[in-house]
């Protein structure tokens, strides 16, 4: 008979505790490995947008989910060790050396979590594979690649297991290091009262810290960047720590303070439940905080997905023309006849076919890329900044039907609806234009902005900026300009009849095959900057895949085909959406399991006190009410705080982007409200279920 044999035998009598720990640990490993294996798959990685906020947000939310799972494991380990304390204490009291106990406990836990870890990774792999195959069918790969589980995903999952093994072992070692035997023996029954002196001031400071944290993290960087033109780099993130501290204070106050105030009768009504909760204060607050963070994380993931989806659908709907594409002078253009012939094959009618001529001239501008050591934005005026696009006022009016009046020596900037100015690029930065072939220069002045979505490419700045010139200025500047420096912009609409998607797909492939090499460039590419900058990094040729519809490729001359955009939008964003929704589910499941486990712990801990109260004459209705009040604490405040805080934060983010809530952001806010409602319902259902189970703990055993 060895110590390990004894532990194994004791395990049989404490199945419930082992089951709870095993469930929590395995669930965390399954969630993390599924997410890691799915996200790191080359099939998924190749479909994520390159660079940009989405990827950053995705990794941020992934980190939140992993952190949630780590916290979840820490919580489950704490509960497990607490239950183990009595066994360990008795062995110690009987003279078992700590070294022997440590070795046995370590061996038992390591064996258990390794088994769970491996099983979790295998199950996670199966889920990720099934999920990936469903996703593969959904995005319909045109290049023939297929979803497979990556080795890096398995390495990542094993890394997670290794880290969590270290955490669990660290907690076990710390647990055994304690010298006070009586403390270890009583660990299971230990109360955790809040010893802080908590008053209204404590709460008010908590709320102030939350407000300062939120506003500081969002508004201060906005004000500093727009008004002072300075960057605070990572500094604003410090403000979010204040939110965390503030949240902790609010939670502590909700548990520790129960005042008579103006409603003494109500105060006495909840006296017992409050008194009981207060004595489990620290662990309750810790749980409430974790649940709040997990719900906030899931809401952020859903809000971000919804915003992207609505934004994407909205951008397709706001296009001025169904089809819009460009050619540089050296490309072999598809002719109008070829396009019309192709349309006939798909029984599609072409309306309003127009070709707009642009000059590509060297314009002046202001470079705003870096900050100086004090964080101030460096603004450098450049006489020769980028090759920019210019259309004559007459041509613009002919093609768009929008009347413009541009005087000689003046210009107008072309923007699109909903585009808001940012301080990196200003429409009036241009004050000089030059024909790069003849060398003719012309000073210009800004005369306002005109909106036309089809003439707004990418962010409409630097080499992608479009301007309207006076007809005479245009004619003067065109003289001696080579063919390559001309650009034709083709625009037309499609009738509602026929296979518009099939036509668009075919036209896209033909367009891709007809462009010249000088057009296969990234959106940030500029030939003038390439010629003048020895370390230019945007020269690489873009690989265009005619069969892949290329919507997510960073291509300067990417066309806008509304039928494709509409149909392929969900596919283009599917990866992102799926992962975000997956992360949201991970967070919600973790929050749910923690809430449920806490409710059961509350019931177990309250049982003896409730039985005492029963002896004093409380009936079942009263005991139920006391239990309900306690379980409510686990759910209500964390849900309300997370929902309100994340909703306010996200709405402020929408506002912060451009200093206003735009019309197309209202549907996003509406979706966010519905999401909040759904999360509240989810939490309510869990609350009811937890209450029922907690009631069973109290009354049926």
């Amino acid at each position, binding site marked *: 008979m060895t110590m390990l044999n004894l532990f194994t035998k004791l395990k049989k009598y404490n199945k419930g505790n082992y089951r709870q720990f095993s469930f929590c640990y395995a669930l965390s490993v399954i969630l993390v490995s599924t997410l890691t294996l799915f996200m790191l798959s080359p099939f998924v990685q190749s479909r994520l947008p390159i660079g940009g906020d989405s990827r950053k947000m995705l990794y941020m939310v992934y980190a939140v989910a992993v952190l949630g799972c780590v916290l979840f494991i820490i919580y489950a380990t704490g509960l497990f060790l607490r239950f183990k304390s009595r066994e360990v204490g008795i062995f110690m009291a009987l003279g078992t050396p700590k070294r022997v106990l440590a070795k046995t406990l370590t061996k038992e836990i390591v064996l258990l979590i390794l088994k769970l870890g491996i099983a979790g990774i295998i199950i996670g792999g199966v889920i990720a594979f099934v999920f990936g195959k469903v996703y593969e069918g959904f995005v319909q790969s045109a290049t023939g690649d297929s979803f497979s589980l990556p080795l890096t995903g398995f390495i990542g999952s094993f890394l997670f297991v290794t880290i969590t093994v270290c955490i669990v072992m660290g907690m076990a070692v710390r647990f055994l290091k304690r010298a006070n035997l009586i403390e270890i023996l009583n660990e299971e029954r230990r109360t955790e009262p809040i010893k802080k002196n908590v008053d209204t001031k404590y709460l008010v400071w908590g709320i102030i810290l939350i407000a300062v944290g939120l506003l500081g993290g969002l508004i201060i960087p906005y004000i500093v960047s727009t008004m002072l033109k300075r960057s605070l780099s990572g500094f604003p993130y410090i403000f979010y720590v204040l939110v965390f501290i503030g949240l902790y204070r609010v939670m502590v106050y909700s548990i520790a303070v129960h005042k008579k105030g103006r409603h003494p009768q109500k105060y006495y009504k909840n006296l017992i439940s409050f008194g009981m909760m*207060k004595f489990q204060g620290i662990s309750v607050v810790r749980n409430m905080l974790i649940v709040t963070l997990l719900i906030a994380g899931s809401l952020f993931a859903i809000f971000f997905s919804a915003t992207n989806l609505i934004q994407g659908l909205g951008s397709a709907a706001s296009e001025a023309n169904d089809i819009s594409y460009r050619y540089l002078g050296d490309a072999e253009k598809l002719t109008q006849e070829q396009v019309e012939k192709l349309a006939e094959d798909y029984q599609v009618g072409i309306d309003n076919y127009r070709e707009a001529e642009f000059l590509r001239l060297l314009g002046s501008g202001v470079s705003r890329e870096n900050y100086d050591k004090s964080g101030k934005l460096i603004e450098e005026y450049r006489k020769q900044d980028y090759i920019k696009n210019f259309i004559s006022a007459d041509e613009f009016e002919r093609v768009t039907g929008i009347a413009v009046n541009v005087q000689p020596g003046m210009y107008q900037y072309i923007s699109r609806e909903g585009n808001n100015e940012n301080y990196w690029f200003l429409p009036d930065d241009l004050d000089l234009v030059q024909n790069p072939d003849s060398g003719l220069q012309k000073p210009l002045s800004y005369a306002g902005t005109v909106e036309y979505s089809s003439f707004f490419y990418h962010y409409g700045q630097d080499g992608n900026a479009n301007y309207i010139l006076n007809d005479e200025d245009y004619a003067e500047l065109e003289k001696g300009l080579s063919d390559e420096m001309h650009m034709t912009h083709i625009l037309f609409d499609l009738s509602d009849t026929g296979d518009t998607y099939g036509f668009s797909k075919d036209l896209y492939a033909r367009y891709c095959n007809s462009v010249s090499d000088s057009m296969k460039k990234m959106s940030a590419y500029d030939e003038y900057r390439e010629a003048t900058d020895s370390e230019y990094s945007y020269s690489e040729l873009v690989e265009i895949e005619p069969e892949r519809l290329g919507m997510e490729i960073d291509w300067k001359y990417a066309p806008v085909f509304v039928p494709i955009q509409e149909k392929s939008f969900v596919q283009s964003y599917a990866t992102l959406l799926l992962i975000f929704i997956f992360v949201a589910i991970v967070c919600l499941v973790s929050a749910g399991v923690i809430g449920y486990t806490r409710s059961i712990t509350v019931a177990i801990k309250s049982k003896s*006190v409730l039985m005492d109260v029963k002896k004093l004459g409380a009936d079942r209705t009263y005991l139920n009410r006391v239990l309900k009040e306690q379980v409510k604490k686990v759910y209500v405040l964390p849900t309300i705080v997370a929902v309100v805080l994340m909703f306010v934060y996200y709405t402020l983010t929408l506002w912060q982007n451009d200093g206003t809530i735009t019309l197309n952001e209202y549907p996003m806010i509406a979706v966010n409200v519905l999401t909040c409602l759904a999360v509240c319902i989810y939490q309510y259902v869990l609350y009811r279920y937890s209450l029922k189970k907690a009631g069973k703990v109290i009354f049926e055993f």
Partner: protein
Amino acid sequence: MLKVNHLFKSYQTGKITYEVLKDVCFEVEKGEFVAVMGASGSGKTTMLNCISCFHSYDKGEITLNGCNLSKLDETEIAKVRNEQLGFVFQDFMLLDGLTVFENVCVPKVIRNEDYQPMEQKAATLLKMFGIDHIADKYPAEISGGQKQRVAVARSLMNDPLVILADEPTGNLDSRSSEAVIQAFIEAKKKLGATILMVTHDTFSASYCDRVIMMKDGAVDCELINKGDRKAFLEDILIVLKKLNGGDDNDNA
């Protein structure tokens, strides 16, 4: 006030039946302070638990002020416990998260009674038992004797017909025990309280009006206090010695 008539109670462990109470009969009059004594396993706590309705019993009848307790449903039992019985336990059973004052209020809080008379009553009881200066303290901050006096005050909150005390001095030193017994005597004198106390402590029992001696699940004999406490204490010790087969292993 309290009548126990031919009470029988047994436990079943596997196929073996243990008779714990065998035809127990006694009465407690209004305003009486009665102790129940006997060796461990004699059935005194089981009997008290039957009166408290914590345990059911096989046969017999317990009536409180004429009401048969065995006929009550769960809600009615809770009402009786709350309004007609007061409890004092060996381990005090105070709620750690509530102050002394709030703990005393608990029996009325359970019934959600009007807070103003409740607060007045609690304040009066705290003063009566000399614990008003610790009203705002938590149980962890006061002594065992003080805790038990808080429990006595709590038991009187609803003016019960009978206070049932289970080893109230069991966890206390002699000085604290005396203070608790004095609290019971005070309650009896000033409030006319009726007290039934299960105890091992002969010193505490010597303050009672009557002592019911139990042996092997039945009432063995009753001793009446004729006014001389010391003589009564001697009587109790003699009977206990006889009940224990000649060995006085009591903690008097």
